[in-house]
């Protein structure tokens, strides 16, 4: 790593806000660092200030708010999530998707919020959070506000987040607790790999949600479907109209389109979508 940078490790969120105000666009939030440090090594990002949020105890917590919504704070790692019994029991699709990120060592560092903020079209957490109708909880320095995750991504590695803002947490609505859901990902090897494509689904109170990754400039959430007269063929047709995959080193666009069809079929025709 060639560039010098200032490193702060605040112990409170107030200090994060202060540093962000001070340095704004020059700074980057450092959580797991499993994406950021690679970019810095490759010279594609050269921030002059790093604000490490791992020192803030509250941000490492997985909580329930007073309304029973699930709160995944900004420094929660993939392995924290995977090993959390409440999540395994009530939101298994999150643990399942987190388990496909990197290797065990990477999952010890990589955070769920980081996966979202990195905004890769292939982000493994995006699909499940989209179909669980999650919200991104953002602190703008003055107040806290929420953005539905379906509005969070704006392009490849791009989000609505402004330089002085940071993502405090992800909120998953309590109404999705214990609801059917599932996630399928295709990759070149069964070990750590970026997906060729992925599909997540959920069913809740008559509504079916379907999200698709690696098939557009952002992860895509399809319009809701009614589960009563669910026609899988129609879902696939809508999916095909909403994705625009490319040919790359991981797979061809034709293969991606085909896999999306297969995965939607598999996820929506399983008796129990999630185990």
């Amino acid at each position, binding site marked *: 790593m060639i560039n010098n940078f200032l490193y702060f490790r605040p112990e409170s969120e107030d200090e994060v806000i202060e540093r962000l105000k001070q340095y704004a666009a020059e700074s980057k939030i450092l959580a797991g660092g499993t994406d950021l440090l690679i970019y810095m090594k490759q010279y594609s990002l050269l921030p002059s200030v790093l604000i490490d949020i791992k020192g803030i105890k509250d941000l490492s917590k997985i909580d329930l708010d007073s309304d029973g919504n699930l709160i995944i704070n900004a420094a929660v790692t993939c392995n924290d999530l995977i090993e959390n019994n409440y999540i395994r029991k009530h939101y298994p699709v999150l643990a399942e998707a987190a388990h496909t990120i990197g290797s065990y060592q990477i999952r010890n560092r990589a955070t769920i919020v980081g996966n979202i903020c990195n905004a890769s079209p292939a982000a493994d957490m995006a699909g499940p959070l989209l179909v669980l109708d999650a919200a991104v909880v953002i602190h703008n320095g003055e107040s806290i506000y929420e953005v539905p995750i379906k509005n969070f991504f704006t392009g490849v590695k791009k989000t609505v987040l402004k330089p002085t803002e940071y993502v405090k947490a992800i909120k998953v609505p309590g109404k999705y607790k214990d609801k059917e859901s599932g996630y399928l990902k295709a990759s070149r090897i069964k070990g750590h790999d970026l997906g060729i494509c992925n599909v997540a689904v959920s069913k809740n109170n008559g509504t079916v949600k379907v999200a698709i990754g690696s098939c557009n400039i952002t992860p895509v959430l399809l319009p809701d479907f009614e589960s009563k007269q669910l026609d899988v063929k129609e879902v696939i047709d809508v999916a095909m109209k909403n994705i625009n995959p490319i040919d790359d080193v991981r797979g061809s666009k034709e*293969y991606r389109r085909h896999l999306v069809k297969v995965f939607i079929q598999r996820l929506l025709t399983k008796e129990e979508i999630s185990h």
Partner: protein
Amino acid sequence: MPEKREYKYIGKSYPRLDADEKLTGQARYVADIVLPGMLYAKMLTSPYAHAKIKSIDVEKAKSLEGVVAVLTGEDLDYNVGLYLVDKRILARGKVRYQGEPVAAVAAETLEIAEKAVRLIEVEYEPLKPLLDVEEAFNERENLVHPDLGSYSYLKAAFYPQPGTNICHVTKIRKGDIEKGFSEADIIVEREYNNPSVQHVPMETHGAIVQWGIGDKVLIYTSAQSPFTVRNLFCHTFKLPHQNVRVIVPYVGGGFGGKAGIHLEPLVACLSHAAGGRPVKLIATREEEFNTLPCRCGLKFKIKTGLKKDGKITAQKLILLWSAGAYADYAVNVTRASGYSAGGPYFYENLYIDSFAVYTNQVFGTAYRGFGHVELFWGLERHMDFCAKNLNMDPYEFRKINLIKPGDTTATQEPVVDSTGSVRKCLDAVVKAIEWRGNKTDSEREKEIKSKKVRGKGFAVLHKAPAMPTNTSSSCVIKMNENGSIILNISSTDYGNGTYTPMAQVVAEELDIPLSKIHVAFETDTDRDPYDWQTVASRFTPMGGRAVVNACNNLKNKMAAVAAQVFNCSPDDFIFQDEKVIYKNDLTKFIPYSQLATGYVFPNGNAIGGPLIGVGVYIAEGLTHLDKETGKGLPAFNWTFGAHAVEVEVDTETGEYQVLKIASAFDVGKVMNYASLKGQVIGGVVQGLGTAMCERYVYDSQGRLINKTFTDNKIPTAKDIPNEFIPIFIETAHDKGAYGARGAAEHPMISVAPAIGNALRDALDIELTSMPIRAEDVWLALNNKKVLVDSK
């Protein structure tokens, strides 16, 4: 033939001698070493695959504080090369592949060196890159090496063709190929392809060099072969051998990629330019992929004449090896694969042309299998295809044509009983997977409906060491005061596990407990005896002979002293239980420890002196191959083998899993069962990587797209077969230690075609290009329109 005897240590399983050091992190690698006053180096590499270097401005880099030396190709008038001296230490005049080093910096810290290389300004004039091996083969104007005619090369074995991009050709001409084809009932012809891939050792290449006073050079390097590094280094810099000391500490894998010489000359020049301060260069993973060499690509054209009864009447093989920008080992891969390309089959009429062709891609080097992984993909897929064209069981078809005692090889070497048996290997693996003949179409259709289809396939293999005719090894064993042994050899144990069986040899020959034998791990050309190279799966059979000879030498020395003590003939001793025992009166004996540093009589007189055993072994009777026909005796031994697999395919996604793989090798003699089993499992997994996912992908300008682990994938623990079945056949070899043959590379060979053949059995699809990605299976199925897609 080796004597038949019961062994106490040979053939048993013992844990690796280096296991604890490696597992605890105590083992010292080049990257761990820090010398006083050491500088750190960084390379600047070319963004173009083929370009003239118009100018390089290093002034800004030189003026950066902490920078001690900056070098470009213009500063270095040295040529390097293994067999064909075609390379500069840093590109000079033009660059020949994207990733080629054009400048380098030595600085007080790695960070300063990194900053400095980014300040170097290079002006290029791009040239058209040659990226297709066939195009490069036919090209006569656009040449990767216009000066090919002026390069020096090893004339006994290599034939570069100036005015072309062809840097070597090996020819085999046996029988009458045209007659063979005219006798055929049918002719089967097809082309097979392999991309370049990387070795991906855990430890990347690294070197620390200090160019000392009086041109005495000290080199620490992660090399496979310390003496070859020294020899090639001395040739490049015209230094006498006694001036150069090469130390190889623990090495974290090489798989052929660390054979020969790589970073050492550049680091030496930086040290020289820095006034003799030691300089360290450790390749990044990206450099390992993009700057250091890879495995060559291969385009393999096979044409076979067949009788209806399955007999092969003629075989014509054209191999176009993509050497990349420099000849390195590619020319020798071309040579070895040239005389091996027919595989373990008997041909009356055989015609082979194996070409090494320069292209503007990362250059190729040795990689486990030395061309055989690549050629057997084509050959064994082709044999399956021949059987299919004859409507025969591929097992029956192979049985008709496999080589056997009484036949001759491609180079017209007679095959005898002690050559080994490929038939026994094939029989064993076919039995292990319960092969019952090809699947019928109706069986297949039924399974396809369930979307999970199983298939079985197999492939045979052979490989001989690719070695000079004078390949030699030596060994020194030194007895310590307590009667224990230090064993010095210079065949680096870079993960292959050779040292443990060598300790077993000493234990066996001297009857000393294994715990009292220490094999010295760091190799030092100043202190350790000569060995050619740690390559070619040759050390156990050949180096093992040197170790046996060293033990015999030590025994003779002990017997000579004991004969004086007991006033008898030195021929009258046996060596047992750490004692020299007078065989005519077993109460008369001397423990080894009393001889170790000299025997002392009760009155104080001493005889003998420190015990040191010396053993050497050199291959005998090998010949160069005839330039026009390939006739000759190229190698020490052939090791035969076969794999058989059962796979299960998801017909909707094309994903497949190897359920079971049986692998048999005629190893002559198992030296250490656990170690050999480990070699088989490791080799199979590496072969699986090559089969399922590994490949270099270049863009239209010749830039490597996947130069990181993000997109250059290798298999993980989750990808391995469900079951491994290693099988060892022991047809004793007549020259190898204890009858043993090498088996280090062989487990990787022919894994891919066995899987390709199993996919053919499962789905009746014909895959001809490696790797076989899930997408390729899906595409092949789709093109057949067999896919049952309910949507």
